[in-house]
């Protein structure tokens, strides 16, 4: 039900190809998302939300990747989840997530002021609010700001041309602020799960497009799909798409049950590894036409390249996961691996 509705909406939003990404806050594309309450997946039904869980969120995240939708739907959804865990009321509109290591808080009691640098914020200059994790007053804090108060230190774009901005705040008025123990790592894990699910969607989208292309394109008097060399490359592509989808779904289910640190780490790493294999296969299968601006293949591949390094690249997660496994030791390895499935 959720899947069908969201699938239809995203398809409509992308009906005219990749939209312009400027002026996102006032973009007519955002309103239908807001109207559907899509960023309130985690909000209880009693408060007007979906009353959903991570497995429901996976459906939305996956479809974001499948349609390559250039909107901060996932970021807003996760920002709201974090705000809720910190017991801060969520504002309407678009919200992004950032982390600050040099935060300074000041204030006169009536209001709190935030100064600090937040780098690599997805859609940073384009969203209405930003949720920032930081350590201040010797506690982990979560704070909510009107992002218009920030100055763009430098505008960056990811490989797909989506904003990834470095922002500076000078005595910005904090809308709300609460302590959130472990907030920085939570934000990282949630965002890594988001990107993993988006990667699974983009892999499936590009797989479907590639299957359609090799069935239609003919060379040497027959469709490309009839060549065994092509068939076997697409089989590998399907395997990668399957692995990431299964991992992301299983990690979402585990996160519904308990904190799924291991599962999310394993999933983001698996998703990252799939990106290199899959983007190579889909571009090879499409030949020169897939390398053009005009063709839609780059909707997926550019995002895949970007998402691989966001919220933990291969090195980060393999190191973190490896340290955990080595610390647990040989005697615990199998026991922990199976305990993570028996939930």
């Amino acid at each position, binding site marked *: 039900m959720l899947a069908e509705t969201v699938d239809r909406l995203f398809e409509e939003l992308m009906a005219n190809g990749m939209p312009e990404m400027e002026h996102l806050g006032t973009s007519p594309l955002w309103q239908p998302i807001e109207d559907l309450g899509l960023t309130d997946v985690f909000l209880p039904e009693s408060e007007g939300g979906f009353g959903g869980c991570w497995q429901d969120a996976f459906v939305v995240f996956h479809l974001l990747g499948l349609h390559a939708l250039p909107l901060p739907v996932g970021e807003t959804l996760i920002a709201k989840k974090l705000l809720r865990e910190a017991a801060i009321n969520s504002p309407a509109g678009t919200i992004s997530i950032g982390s600050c290591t040099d935060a300074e808080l000041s204030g006169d009691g009536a209001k709190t002021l935030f100064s600090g640098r937040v780098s690599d914020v997805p859609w940073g200059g384009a969203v209405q609010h930003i949720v920032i994790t930081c350590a201040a007053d010797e506690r982990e804090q979560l704070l909510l700001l009107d992002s218009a108060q920030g100055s763009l230190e430098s505008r960056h774009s990811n490989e797909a041309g989506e904003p990834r901005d470095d922002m500076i705040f000078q005595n910005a008025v904090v809308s709300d602020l609460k302590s959130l123990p472990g907030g920085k790592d939570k934000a990282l894990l949630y965002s890594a799960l988001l990107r993993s699910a988006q990667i699974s969607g983009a892999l499936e989208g590009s797989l479907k497009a590639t299957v359609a292309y090799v069935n239609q394109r003919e060379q040497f008097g027959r469709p490309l799909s009839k060549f065994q060399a*092509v068939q076997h490359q*697409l089989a590998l592509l399907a395997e990668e798409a399957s692995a990431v989808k299964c991992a992301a779904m299983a990690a979402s289910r585990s996160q519904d049950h308990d904190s799924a640190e291991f599962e999310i780490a394993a999933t983001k790493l698996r998703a990252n590894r799939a990106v290199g294999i899959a983007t190579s296969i889909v571009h090879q299968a499409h030949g020169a036409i897939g390398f053009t601006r005009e063709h839609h293949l780059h909707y997926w591949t550019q995002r895949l390249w970007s998402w691989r390094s966001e919220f933990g690249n291969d090195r980060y997660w393999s190191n973190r996961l490896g340290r955990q496994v080595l610390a647990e030791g040989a005697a615990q390895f199998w026991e922990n691996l199976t305990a993570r499935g*028996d939930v």
Partner: protein
Amino acid sequence: MLNFTPLKMPSDVGVLRQQVREFLSTELAAMTGPQRAHSWSGFDAEFSRKLGQKNWIGMMWPQKYGGHERSAIERYVVIEELLAAGAPVAAHWIADRQSGAQLLRYGNETLLQRYLPEMARGELYFCIGMSEPNAGSDLASIKTIAQRVEGGWLINGAKLWTTNVERAHMMIALVRTSKDEKNRHGGLSQFLIDLSSPGVEVKGISDHQGERDFGEVFLTDVLVADEMLLGNEGDGWSQVNAELALERSGPERYLSSYRLIEELLTSVADDPSDIVVNMMGDIASELWTLRQMSMSVAGQLSQGGNPTLEAAIVKDLGACFEQNLPVIVQAALGEDVSIDRDSSLYQVLSYLLRASPAFSLRGGTREILRGIIAKGMGLR
């Protein structure tokens, strides 16, 4: 297009898992790492008998034939515990995993009563006669024939690369019962053959590292009774393919090199380099993912689904993982990991480097699997 809905393990499997672990920690206490590394090719008749006594063979079969009527997921848990521990399951492995199911699906009442109870006790061993000298991946080109004669069928031909053949008592063989020029998949049938019958000659074959897990069988005027025909005459091809589809995605498809992981974890120094740490992370990520995929297919099978495409995907990815594991471990060894040639780690690594090419050959080659996946996606 691709269904990998995660399986929810029933909450009570933890008790069974614990029972298996306790049994294995006692039974396998004396086994070395290199012995455990043999995984499902390790043979121990006494162990199989004890496992039968614990009711962990033929777990899903009806009680009236000596089975235990447990669920597919319970069986999955037992199998993965056996494989993770490196238990020597080869004696009963094929009977439990494939032949029992084939008999239950296609065998008549006489055969079920005669063979299944002994199989469930872990005392009657099976092998599967499919490949022949000139028929490997192209299985439909087999030449072994069965001709109808007075009192049954007369079988002539040869089977090759038959796993467990030197120790097996019985073989389920795919043979040609008629020739259909228009349909090469027609005219094939499955027979149960008692390997002690007159006219059967078995020869083991040493693999390149001197192990004798497979061999060949020569069948010369072997007379088998009518009741030994499984299913319908001429239905052999579809029967065999259903069997292969079912056996593609179990825990044995990604745990063949598992011993190396525990050996590695045991051998790593206290302060390992990032090369070793990151490799451990990669291994954990891939293994966890494969297990989720395999369990998903098991869940679909237990609910009557037909995940042929998904099962082929699990097998190909699983075999790649099993084969890659010894390669990356060999490449990463250094001063922070013991490389002493007498060490358990080194011996397990050395065995697996040599054993692993078979992982993408047995039960359908990588090329056949990728063809099945391509077909599932509508490419052929």
